């Protein structure tokens, strides 16, 4: 996926005008908020469980090499294979090699953000393999050739009309005059269509929410059950996972799971939380014959020991974007790559470069709501600020802003001059403002402000001027 992150401003401006998107966002936002709040309120120990979650992840990251080695040994002991992939290219090649070796033509897929990150679908298609997304949201996006707009609700930006339109266009073997009376009919059609695909697939690819070192297990969480069908029915199961997904034990994973669904969808627990360890055992009646894990680094190891290490705690619950006032009005596509919202604003620059993703850490008011809901307490605003510092150091900050900042900095460091300048400025604006009813509808150099709102006029006398005056007249 070619990033459009450099065009964030244009993307956002367009998104604000898109009626359908705005309708979808308006519907989505309050749901996420109230559901999470309710689930959290129902578990009094939630804040402590967040602390524990943060600590488990920190502990694991500190000994990441050891836990990955332990995990890999246990995968192999259970008859599975681990493919260590430093780059996205390595990961794509490893998936393709497996598919080609087993002669796969159709590959079903559970939801995986790693798959988006390494742009797997396009790659498989180019090599004559048909990938089929089975998460309902991902499925319709695949039909529409659109990227996801949200990491857990990839198609939340679509409305019912969009679903019907896409289904009519794509499922051409069904009667064109069929009626979709309710959402249920859309679901039923998707279920039927995808059942055919599940049965025809040679390989099933899923993501992983967690890897468990103790047992060599991968964990996925779904509500639909598509991930389970994807990994149970075909001959080969491939797991796409990145290195930071590992936790030490089943008990550690359990603590994380108490956080995940509540933070994500506001459920106490997802419908299907599935722990997979190796391929079908000799006596098993079902399950895949081969089990592979594609273990992706793709720059993550270089975040260790950096100001961005805490980001590796992320469990991809999407609470940060659900509660982000910027995400809530522009949606996920504006961010221009795989990971939107606050977590994307921190992660994307690491993965595609700050020169490409420079807008993302800037497009935040630092309101701090993301951090306040993050289940593993990632200091997202602090890390966005780190990115701004890197941009400033590398002179990626626009020169107009730099000049202003420098000028302002000069005055701020010289209180005497600062007093003079502010006194003059306030007096002028105050005087002009009084003649305009106390506010300006336009001001030179302040177009960005006054396009959307008036500029209230200052009182006219600075505080220090007034303080001095009142002090002298003993009026204080």
């Amino acid at each position, binding site marked *: 996926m070619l990033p459009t992150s450099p065009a964030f401003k244009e993307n956002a401006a367009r998104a604000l005008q898109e009626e359908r998107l705005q309708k979808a966002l308006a519907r989505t936002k309050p749901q996420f908020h109230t559901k999470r709040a309710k689930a959290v309120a129902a578990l*009094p*120990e939630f804040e402590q*469980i967040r602390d*524990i979650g943060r600590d488990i992840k920190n502990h694991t990251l*500190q*000994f990441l*090499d*050891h836990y*990955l080695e332990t995990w890999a040994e246990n995968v192999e002991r259970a008859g599975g294979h*681990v493919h*260590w992939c*430093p780059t996205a290219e*390595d990961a794509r090649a490893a998936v393709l090699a497996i598919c080609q070796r087993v002669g796969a033509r159709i590959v079903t897929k559970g939801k995986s953000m790693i798959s988006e990150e390494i742009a797997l679908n396009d790659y498989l298609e180019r090599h004559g393999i048909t990938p089929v997304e089975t998460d*309902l*949201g991902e499925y319709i996006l695949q039909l529409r050739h659109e990227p996801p707009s949200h990491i857990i*609700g990839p198609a939340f930006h679509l409305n*019912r009309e969009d679903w019907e339109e896409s289904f009519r266009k794509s499922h051409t073997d069904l009667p064109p005059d069929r009626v979709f009376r309710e*959402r249920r009919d*859309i*679901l039923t059609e998707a279920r039927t269509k995808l*059942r055919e695909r*599940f*049965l025809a697939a040679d390989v099933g690819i899923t993501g992983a929410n967690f890897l468990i070192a*103790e*047992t060599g297990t991968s964990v996925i969480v779904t*509500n*639909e*059950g*598509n991930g*389970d*069908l994807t990994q*149970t*029915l075909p001959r080969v199961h491939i797991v796409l996972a990145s*290195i930071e997904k590992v936790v*030490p*034990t*089943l*008990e550690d994973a*359990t*603590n994380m*799971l108490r956080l995940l669904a509540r933070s994500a*969808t506001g*459920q*106490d*627990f*997802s*419908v*299907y*939380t599935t*722990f*997979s*360890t190796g391929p079908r*055992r000799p*006596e*098993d*009646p*079902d*399950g895949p014959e081969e089990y592979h894990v594609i273990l992706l*680094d793709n720059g993550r190891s270089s975040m*260790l020991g950096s100001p961005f290490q805490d980001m590796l705690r992320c469990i991809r619950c999407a609470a940060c974007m659900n509660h982000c006032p910027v995400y809530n009005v522009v949606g996920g596509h504006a961010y221009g790559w795989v990971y939107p919202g606050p977590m994307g604003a921190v992660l994307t620059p690491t993965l595609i470069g700050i020169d490409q993703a420079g807008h993302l850490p800037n497009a935040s008011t630092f309101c701090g709501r993301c951090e306040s809901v993050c289940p593993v307490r990632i200091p997202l605003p602090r890390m966005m600020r780190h990115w701004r510092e890197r941009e400033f150091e590398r002179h990626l900050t626009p020169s107009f802003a730099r000049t202003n900042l420098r000028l302002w900095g000069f005055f701020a460091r010289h209180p005497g001059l600062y007093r003079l300048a502010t006194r003059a400025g306030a007096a002028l604006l105050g005087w002009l403002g009084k003649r305009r009813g106390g506010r300006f509808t336009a001001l030179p150099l302040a177009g960005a402000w006054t396009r959307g709102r008036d500029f209230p006029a200052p009182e006219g006398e600075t505080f220090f001027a007034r303080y001095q005056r009142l002090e002298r007249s003993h009026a204080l």
Partner: protein
Amino acid sequence: MSRELILSSIRRHLRRGPLPPDHRLMLAARLAQHPRHLIPARSRLPRPEQIALFISQVEKEFGTVVRLSGLEDVPGAIAEYLAQHNLPTRLVAAPHPEITALPWGERPLLEVRFGRAEPSDQVSLQHGFAGIAETGTLMLPSGPERPTTINLLADTALVLLRASRVVGAYEEAWDLLRAERSGGNGPLMPRNVMLVTGPSRSADIEQTLELGAHGPRRLHVLLIDDDPAAKPDAG
């Protein structure tokens, strides 16, 4: 090769070499002890209330539960449930000895096949390994006696569960699994362990919940009251 590349990059950025042996021992000990973390008070209840919590949580997640006084009541309860919901009387059941031994003959109208499920199956019966009261979750590990397909392919999923196997928290269910499997020399975990909380669903279409996305649309638990201390009138 690429394994070393990743591991050495991790170590380089953590500004250290491979872990010294004493560190590795310490970490191995943590794995061996697999300490529990905070367990929410929610499920720390006397047995009858724990069972009641399990039931109310299953129902909150759109599942249903029927309490039966013994295994012998199961075929009848299934027949009744299927009739009530206008469902076919043919079902596929997990080949668990407790299920194969049920008095199926008493309900000749029920057509039962034992084994893995096929896409054409409309109704399935699984044997529950454990129930977790905290969230009304079923623990369903795979194995010859519990095919995974049974959990997934049919539109109506029935699960037989002994009340004595209902625990409070997930950790207690893991302990049951560890206890059952720690004897052998195979892996600790079966190929697959599913934690199932209610029937399949999706909110992908306009964020509106619809049941029965890819998996079962109905989840019905047949709860056997085999635990005298857990009965509603106990204590």
